[in-house]
């Protein structure tokens, strides 16, 4: 966190919404990406990312400056997403069900300026693989690959131990490798890797 962000944070702590807006601008990418990777749905991702920022704003007094602000924010986001996934599962929209195989059948793919990138085959493939994982494995994978967090930082974000994270990551990698084998994803994967 740079000095400017520290100033915004201090102002936001005193209730300054404009200052917090600047923090939203600075961290919108990581927070939205995490929500999207976890939820696999653009509408829900926006809602979850907004909710995560609102929670962060209302709980700023609990933020410990010795921790990285981004880690704290990602922790709020991923916990909120896991709650959503559990609620979603409770309403019979299980994430464990295999996703429709073709991108055209994927739900909630709205047309928009950014949808081209989101709609790319690679993104769909990644989301298919992530969807095969339990939410805690998925969370660890996302934090590792898109945020380049160390095992220690992931453990801190997920409030668990480093050995648990190592174990989850290995199982997740193995599970995704297995999914490529079972679902014929390997053939789709090949063009993206050459």
């Amino acid at each position, binding site marked *: 966190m740079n000095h400017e962000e520290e100033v915004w944070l201090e102002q936001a702590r*005193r*209730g300054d*919404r*404009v200052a*917090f*807006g600047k923090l*939203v*601008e600075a961290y*919108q*990418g*990581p927070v*939205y*990406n995490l929500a*999207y*990777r976890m939820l696999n749905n*653009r509408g829900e991702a*926006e809602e979850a*990312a*907004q909710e995560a*920022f*609102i929670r962060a*704003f*209302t709980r700023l007094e609990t933020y410990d400056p010795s921790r990285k602000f981004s880690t704290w924010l990602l922790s709020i986001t991923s916990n909120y997403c896991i709650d959503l996934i559990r609620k979603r599962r409770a309403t019979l929209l299980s994430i464990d069900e295999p996703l429709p195989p073709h991108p055209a059948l994927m739900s909630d793919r709205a047309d*928009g*300026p*950014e949808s081209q*990138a*989101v709609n790319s085959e*690679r*993104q769909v*493939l*990644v989301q298919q*693989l992530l969807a095969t994982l339990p939410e805690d494995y998925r969370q660890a*994978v996302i934090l590792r*690959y*898109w945020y380049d967090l160390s095992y220690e930082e992931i453990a801190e974000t997920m409030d668990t131990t480093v050995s648990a994270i*190592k174990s989850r*990551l*290995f199982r997740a*990698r*193995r599970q*995704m*490798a*297995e999914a*490529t*084998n079972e679902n014929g994803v*390997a053939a789709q*994967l*090949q063009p*993206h*890797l050459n």
Partner: protein
Amino acid sequence: MEHEEIIGLMMDALDGELSAAGEAELVAHLRARPDLAAEFGRMQAVDRLLRETPAVTPPPGFVQRTVRRLPAATRRHLWMGVFVYALFMAAGLIPLVGLGWAAVQLVPALGQPAMWAGLWQAVLALLNAAGVILRALVSGAGELVAEQPQLIGWLLLMALVVVVWGGVVNRLVFQQERT
């Protein structure tokens, strides 16, 4: 090589942290286990796919929509906090005020000898009442035993049943658990 060691080497390889010696070890092991080599190949492919997939960006206007939803409640929360604190303070003060009032009312009366004499009489009356109740209970129980002597026999029988049953339970349950 232990299975755990192989897993460790595979993880290090995927994280780009494998030493030259570790790499040689892993390669040797994978040559001997084609099934594991195929699985590791798939894991590497997934790993590359994830690493090469860029983050998605939020839709335009995300910041404005989020800021609009932020509660302007920080100041209100502060006032609420002050109000709740004052309420708790008041709740703590109420019994103190009550005690103070009672003390003010009682202090003049405590100075009068008639007050102490009255209190002493009240204590004596209470002790007397307790004595009467106790005597009645004892004499009632004595009369009951005198009229119904078989009651003693029944009580002894019940005590015997309890002792025997306790022994049975101890033998069946607790000793079985110990073995």
